[in-house]
């Protein structure tokens, strides 16, 4: 029997114990990504679909889990633990993002195998994917405070994501300078650019710029998660 003594270990133990869910979680992104990566789909469309996949995987899982925990009284129980809310939320969401990352690893491996020439983009891809997953988890966590219904929470997650993806230049390249600036301020644009590069396309950024952007958003997301600990865990 696996015993978990810390919050992040507990998340991993519970994940590992749910074998059927584990298989479904690993298979689902691969089923979506495989036709895109293996076929001759235009790079920009494949990158668009994969950016949306990563974003949604990050946001939906944590939103639904935290809503269920709020209903079952676990959030209240967590609140009484001798751990600060910021640390608690960072541990929980970073573990959840890590699990999402593992879930998406086969997709990344597939991209790497199919397009080995895009290796210069792999560090940028990994970093920007980690940042988007953590931000997606945080968005889901904040949305979980808005409703008692997991379905409604998913809606609250998706509603802001779609315009944000548009503003990131994922659906169409931003042409006006203002939109270009906005897109650089959103993490999804770096993931999209990294995916275009890794899939052998022509991104608008250089690999090091994308690495820097992904890293910046990852650090920023960790800091913001710590700041939002009270908001997420102490809202009734």
């Amino acid at each position, binding site marked *: *029997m*696996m*015993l*978990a*003594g*810390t919050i992040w270990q*507990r998340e991993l*133990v*519970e994940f590992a*114990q*749910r074998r059927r869910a584990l298989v479904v979680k690993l298979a689902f992104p691969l089923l979506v990504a495989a036709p895109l990566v293996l076929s001759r789909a235009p790079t920009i469309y494949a990158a668009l679909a994969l950016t949306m996949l990563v974003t949604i995987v990050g946001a939906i899982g944590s939103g639904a889990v935290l809503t269920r925990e709020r209903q*079952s*009284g*676990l959030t*209240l*129980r967590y*609140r*009484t*633990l*001798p*751990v*600060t*809310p910021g640390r608690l939320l960072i541990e929980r969401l970073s573990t959840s993002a890590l699990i999402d990352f593992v879930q998406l690893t086969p997709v990344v491996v597939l991209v790497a195998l199919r397009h080995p020439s895009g290796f210069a983009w792999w560090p940028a891809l990994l970093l920007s994917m980690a940042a988007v997953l953590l931000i997606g988890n945080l968005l889901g966590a904040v949305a979980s405070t808005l409703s008692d219904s997991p379905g409604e929470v998913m809606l609250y997650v998706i509603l802001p994501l779609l315009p944000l993806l548009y503003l990131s230049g994922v659906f169409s390249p931003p042409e006006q300078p203002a939109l270009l600036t906005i897109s650089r301020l959103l993490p999804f644009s770096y993931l999209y650019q990294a995916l275009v590069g890794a899939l052998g396309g022509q991104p608008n950024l250089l690999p090091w710029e994308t690495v820097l952007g992904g890293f910046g958003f990852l650090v920023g997301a960790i800091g913001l998660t710590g700041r939002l600990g009270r908001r997420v865990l*102490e809202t*009734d």
Partner: protein
Amino acid sequence: MKADTASERSLLQATGLARAYRGGKGVFDISLRLSPGEVIGLMGPNGSGKTTLLRMLATAATPTSGQITWFGNSNHRDPSVRRRLGIMLDQPAHFEQMTGYQNAWFFARQYRLGDGLARERLDELFRWSGLAEARDQRVAEYSLGMKRRLSLVEALVHRPSILLLDEPTLALDYRAELDLIERLQLLSLTGTAVVLATNDVHLAERICDRVIFLHQGRVVREGHVPELLTEVAGSKEVQLQMNSPIGLENLRALSAVEAANVEGDTVHIVLARGANPAQVLAVLNGTADLVSNMRVRRPNLGDLFLKLTGVALPAARS
């Protein structure tokens, strides 16, 4: 830890506590003080504010006004405060896909218990709680009583200085209830302070030093149990089970009746000292055939609550 507890004069002090909810419910202007080894009962009907008050004392809810200090520290998020609290909330909350032992282990480790100590204490507590055989079973397969016993294990494992228990005997069988009472008495002797939110009059009378009656979010009476019981000493409670409803006006008009209340098909009547139950029957003259059952018993804290508020405590009826 116990030495620290014994040397602290007041483990917990709350002043002017309030937490208001929409619709006017909540708790208002509550003050209390908890000394080492003291056992305090919070009693009141559902919706009286027991759980809200207990949650504030347990750091799970923030008061909208007033202040609480735990061990001289008023920061409810301070891990050093929370590490000394043992909490059993009203709703047993566990990770359902994990086993009982995995759950208890996780919570024990949050309180910085080392591997060996956690294992030793959990083994003892699982035996004590009767969960030893079910320890490797998923919590999703537990009954409500088992989940509540697991909550007790989790609240006790780190030997807290203050235990805050919401309805601890709910869904427990008689044997488990006796075990719990014995354990709480022992903990109290070693300096652990206990706050219980309960409607269980017998539990409160057996182990509480002091009881606080809450009604509509406010304290209606507070005192030591023997002192409170003298207020109803010599009086009696009469319970009449009725075949059909009767008006209480005539009963309340009797000088022998201190309080009368109807709950379902049962009328609860607190008689004044020296009053004879026959006086009640005399009022019912002509309608006495409506009474299907009658019980007279010595008064308890539930009767005092009824006398003070006109409302019966759910468990006081038994």
